[in-house]
Structure formats: C-alpha cells, structure tokens
C-alpha cells in the first residue's frame, strides 16, 4: 500500500486538482482500491465526491453528509451521529469511509471545524499526538488490507496536520505554479520533507516524487524561466510532465459536470493525454522505492 500526500504550504497551487487526478487515475485507470483523505478544512476535495453540508453556525463550517450506511433506528448506530470525517482520528474516534460514485474510490471527508482545531494545537504533548495519529490509523492491518493507494490532500500550511500527513506517507508530491511566491512555498515543503526523512528509520524512506509544475503556461516567460532554473538546481526532483492551465479542470469540478472525471474523456483529449503522461511519470518515480 502506498500513501501519497500532495503538499504545498501555498494555497491555490493545485493540491486538490492533483489529489483528484491521482485518486481517479489509480481507481479508474489502474483499477486499484483507493482511499481519498481530505485534511484540508476547506473541504474542496471532499466536495468533489460527497455533497458536503454547511453548518451555518460555524466559521469554515463544512461538515460531512450523513453516511450511506447510517441507520438512525439501528441500535448498532447508536454510538455515532452518522457523520464521519478524517478529523476523527485526531480525537481518537473511529472513521467510516464513504463510497463515492467511482466504484474503487472511497473517501474520508474533511470536517472544517475539527480539522482547524487539530491544526491549532500548541501544547507539546498534544502536538506530538496529532503528528503520529494519521500514521497509526493508516498502519492498521484493516486499512492496509482494504486499499492499494491512499491519496491525501493537505491544508495550505506547515502545521501539525500537514506534518501528520508527511509522517503517514510513503510518497509526497509538491504541485507548484512556476511563479515566485509559490516557489518560495516549495522551500518550506522541501524542508519539512528533509526533517521527516532524517527522522525516519532508513528502511522506511519518505519518497519525494518531485515538484509537479501546475497551471503551466508554456508561452509565459516567467513560467518557462522559473521551470528552467528549478531544473538546474534540482534536476532529479522536477517532473518532466507539466499540467497546463486549462479550463477543463474547473469544468469537471462543476455540479452536474459530464463526464465527471477527466479520465472519462476520450483518449484523444489533449488534457487527458497530458494528465496520463504526468500520472505515468509519477508512477515511475514511485518505483524508486519498493514497499
């Protein structure tokens, strides 16, 4: 089982887009069992697969919908309120993944308020607990048995929740727009990766798949120059594939979009071809390590 986190402490660089692409690539194209985890309080990733509800009494108030298997009248369901989010693991509660409209894809959605709470912990012991909680959950035999890939979308921060994702992961990928502010964000992530990699036992490496240029405009000099200078500095860690700036990613996100995944477009679709190239390169780069 591989656990891939999509990280960058800058917002709006394409973390959710890349998370979605990978979740759908492995479930639809590769026919693998995939679990998608949404650690971002903004809950955009969850919203692609579930109809998240809004709790108007809370700021950032997205909450998961009632679970498909929840039956109010079933005595077995008495111990929970029918909503389950990945935030539960930080509070020592069980997690119930939701089935999505894609057969091989399940999702543990976000819960804005509770994730913000986990992100805001400051007391040393509690912080340490948050760090390790996700790794503990994902190393459960039950989880390992049930899935081939786990895709984690993370909040735009370097806080405890992001670190917990890093600790749990086997691989990370850093999507980035080739613009100055975003590239500054790469440094923060590389630094977190370094800390985690030095900290881990050497038989349990954290593979940095690399930096995936997103929202790329091939004719924009600033994009081209930044990509080139990044490749010069760290040639092994910049993907050859890029994801170009296209409307299609917004379109498949829209309510009632048809088809509902980029992978359900015809093979000749330029965006799909580009995405397939990126996914194949990512898979290759994951083979550096065998788990």
């Amino acid at each position: 089982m591989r656990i891939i986190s999509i990280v960058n402490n800058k917002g709006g660089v394409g973390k959710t887009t890349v998370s979605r692409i990978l979740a759908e690539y492995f479930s639809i194209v590769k026919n693998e069992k995939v679990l998608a985890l949404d650690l971002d309080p903004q809950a955009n990733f969850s919203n692609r697969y579930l109809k998240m509800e809004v709790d108007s009494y809370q700021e950032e108030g997205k909450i998961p919908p009632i679970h498909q298997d929840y039956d109010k009248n079933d005595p077995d369901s008495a111990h929970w309120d029918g909503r389950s989010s990945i935030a539960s693991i930080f509070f020592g509660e069980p997690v119930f993944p939701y089935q999505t409209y894609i057969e091989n894809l399940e999702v543990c959605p976000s819960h804005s308020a509770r994730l913000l709470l986990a992100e805001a912990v400051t007391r040393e012991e509690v912080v340490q607990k948050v760090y390790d909680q996700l790794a503990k959950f994902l190393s459960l035999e039950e989880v390992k048995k049930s899935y081939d890939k786990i895709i984690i979308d993370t909040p735009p921060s370097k806080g405890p929740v992001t670190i917990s994702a890093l600790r749990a992961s086997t691989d990370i990928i850093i999507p980035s727009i080739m613009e100055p502010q975003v590239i500054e964000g790469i440094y923060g992530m590389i630094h977190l990766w370094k800390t985690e990699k030095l900290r881990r036992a050497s038989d349990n490496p954290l593979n940095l798949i690399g930096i995936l240029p997103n929202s790329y405009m091939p004719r924009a000099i600033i994009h081209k120059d930044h990509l080139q200078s990044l490749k010069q500095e760290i040639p092994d860690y910049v993907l050859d594939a890029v994801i170009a700036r296209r409307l299609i990613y917004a379109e498949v996100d829209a309510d009632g979009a048809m088809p509902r995944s980029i992978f359900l477009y015809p093979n000749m679709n330029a965006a799909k071809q580009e995405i397939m190239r990126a996914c194949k390169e990512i898979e290759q780069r994951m083979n550096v390590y065998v788990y």
Partner: protein
Amino acid sequence: MSTKKSFSIPKGLATGIRTSIQSATTHHGQLHYDIMAIEAIEPDPNNPRKLSITKDELFRPLNKNDTHYEKKLKELTALHDLAESIKRVGIRNAIEVYKEDNRYKIISGERRYLAAILAGQNFVPARINQKFEELKLRYIQWVENINRQDLSLVEKYNNLLTMASAFTKTSPTPLTADILREILGISETQAYRYHCLLNAEPEIIDLVKSEKLTNLKLVQELSCIKNKSARLKILAELQKTGQEVTSLNQFKKLKEKKSSTASTIHLGKVSHPHTAKYLLQLILKDAKFNQHQARFATINWHSAKDINHAFKTLLRLIEQEFNRAESAIDA
C-alpha cells in the same frame, strides 16, 4: 529598447532548496530519534567497555567480599547521583542504540540507561541506528570509550581486541600499526604502541590483565627488548614489584635504589684523623687481620685522601674475610 524579460529563482532560495535536498538524500535516517520503552533496550554484551555494575546489581546490596567491591561501590554511587539528576530533568542526551533481532542494543549511554532504571523511568530518549557492520560498530564504541579518562589499560586492551577481531573478519590483510592509525585517527606513536600491545606476548598480557602493567608506553618498551631472557627477567621482576611502574627508566632507577638500600651500609664520616688511626690499629691487632699490618705502615696520617684510601682497602679486606667465612659455613 529590449522588451525581453528574464526570470530566475533568487539565489538564496535556490541554494536553500538544493542543499535541503542534498542533506535529505545523503543523511537519510540519521536523526531517527524516539522515546523508547526501557525494556526494549539492553546493554551490548560485546561492548568492550564493561561497567562494573550490571542491571541485576542495581537493586541488590553489594557483597563486601567481592574483589571489585570498591570499584562497584564507586560506580553505584555515581549512578545514584545521575539517577537523581534524571529524576529532576530527565535524560538530556539521547542514548544511542541499534537493532538486533528485535532487541535494541546500546552503542553509547549504558550509564544513562542504568541510571534511568534506578530513577524508575519507563522510557528513555534514544537515537536509533540501523545495525552497523561490525567493524564500524566497534569503532564507534572505541571512540566512545577510548577518550575516557577512567579507562584502564586492560579495558583499552579489550577494546582493541574486539576492534581487531572485527577487522580481521572483513579484511584479508593483517592489522598493521598504519591501519590502526588510519581507522582510529590516532598519532603514529600511539598507533605503534597499541600495535605493540595487540601483539604482545602472553607474559606481558598477563601483567596487563592483572593490572600490574598499566602504562602503554611501558608495554612498547618491554616488547622492544630484543633479548628474550632479559625481557622475561624484567617481566618477572615487574610481576613482583608492588609499585606502579610507568617506564623502563623509572623501573631501573627503582631497582637500583632498592638494592642499595637493602645491601650496602655507609660507615659514616669522621673529622679527626686520630679516630681513623685508632680504629685501624684496633682492627689490625685482631688475629684475623694482623697479617696485613705491613700494608698500612706507610700511611700519611695528615692526608685525608691517604686515610680514605687506606680505609677502603681495609674494608675490602674485612669483607673478603667475612665472605670467605660465609661460604665456608654454607659448604
């Protein structure tokens, strides 16, 4: 006017990204720290540095008849002091361990480990290493140990032996002084001396083990005495001496001093020639010595030099007489 713009990542940022990546790829796993259950950890039985106290002895009263009683008592007192500080501030420096067969063995920090047990701790901070190849492990333990002030020569010797056996397991070439110098990073002289120790004959090693021989320089000097019987003679003498010997020179001086105090007698000084004359005449009247009267007839009793000479002769004659008498009795 040129309108072509060009962009690049700021130099500092680029360097930061590049060096972070280098550090992560080359030092992977080297800061693997954890808080470990103390029961998962145990001392490395092959660590050449042996503490005099074992885990079992921590809570048992020491046996006064134990030959190492003094040493153990000292060690235990120090451990209790350390335990007190651990109770107050915890263990500040993580102990270092490696994994072998599902157990974690201590590379360094055995005292901290024992003191933590004394302090009633259930967990200790530890830096976890993969199992090293044996030579490297022994080398790390060597470095940990060798610079300690309180390490005796016999402990150093044990260190050296484990190092050497780890070396010969992996290398077809013999362990020379040069290789020792290289792997241990010590001076040529030190390396040569350790090499002498490593190849010293059993008699020397016995002395080292019985802690009669505690000085590395002396080991080198001894192994350099070419004449075997002379060497063994000195070794036998060393075995007998109760004093601490640090060099061959010192040992020789010690020996001379001893023999002179044991067997020669100074007869003292006199300032009046008549005293000497009186003694001389008295002795020459004795039946044993009157045959020599003629030899002393011409002494100038005003010359101190003449008198001294005469007395030397007289004393020699008396000694001869007594030696003869002694051997006659022996026979």
